[in-house]
């Protein structure tokens, strides 16, 4: 696991960069929308439009979770609707949907989570330190935290849901017992 995901940022006191909060970032919703559009168009050749949140479909979605650290600590959850997973996997790899293996289906969702998380955080906080864990397959969770950011998107192939939230640093007293920590490398 990247050491930056265990320790708070090692920036000395008095440096200019201050960690932000998602709910206080007016740019955060637009950043998520722009990055989603850019990612889906550039590497998946499809168009993502923001859509109203109706979450019944997320129970059967293919999901991946990715944790981040450095200047900010937190996690991102990605859900791709069951009917969209094969077409977008096939688009990414230049294959027919029938040619996808089960491993490829999962790996594409994990890589999409990786790309989205890094691109969103880099755009939101370009002067920060950033480290990402390996994305893990997951189930969808609803995060009612006021600080969590959530958006749903429609693509021609189906639906995508993204949630991002900041959490306490792992070894801070506020973190509580570790849960779902990535395995040490």
């Amino acid at each position, binding site marked *: *696991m*990247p050491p930056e995901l265990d320790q708070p940022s090692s920036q000395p006191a008095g440096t200019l960069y201050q960690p932000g909060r998602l709910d206080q970032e007016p740019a955060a919703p637009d950043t998520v929308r722009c990055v989603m559009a*850019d*990612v889906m168009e*550039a*590497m998946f050749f499809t168009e993502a439009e923001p859509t109203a949140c109706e979450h019944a479909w997320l129970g059967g979605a293919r999901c991946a979770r990715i944790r981040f650290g450095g200047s900010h600590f937190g996690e991102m959850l990605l859900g791709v609707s069951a009917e969209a997973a094969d077409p977008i*996997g096939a688009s*990414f*790899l*230049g294959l027919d949907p029938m040619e996808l293996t089960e*491993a*490829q289906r999962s*790996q*594409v969702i*994990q*890589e999409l989570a*990786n*790309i989205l*998380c*890094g*691109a969103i*955080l*880099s*755009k939101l*906080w*370009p*002067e*920060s*330190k*950033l*480290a*990402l*864990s*390996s994305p893990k397959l997951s189930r969808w969770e609803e995060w009612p935290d006021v600080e969590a950011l959530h958006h749903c998107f429609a693509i021609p192939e189906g639906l995508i849901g993204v949630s991002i939230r900041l959490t306490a640093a792992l070894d801070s007293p506020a973190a509580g017992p570790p849960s779902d920590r990535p395995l040490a*490398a």
Partner: protein
Amino acid sequence: MAYSVLIVDDSPVMRSFIRRVLNISGFELGECTEAGNGIEALAQLSAHRVDVILTDINMPGMNGEELMLRLSADGTLKTTPAVVISTDATNERIVRMIELGAKGYMAKPFTPEKLRDELERVLGDRDAARA
């Protein structure tokens, strides 16, 4: 002349995406090998030379920054051009990787054509330096 390439990324599908771009870019592609992290990459490089290394940053085991540090400290390997391919586009990381000797930096997302253009630039620079 045929170029040999080492792709270093912990995502098998990202390695497939990159390999596909290499195959269809019109370069004369020789051997294209893959590694899942910096440790595997160094093992590969100790066995055979390559003309360009394409490396991710966030990987378990040994990440791309540590790999670049090792490459820059190796008298032979430090001359092999490396291009970073990463979702991390923070300024500090980009500067750090360039300081460690990266010849290019592709921030995801990018189109296949953009990757092709970057590879043409890096390989062209390398050929010009050798001429």
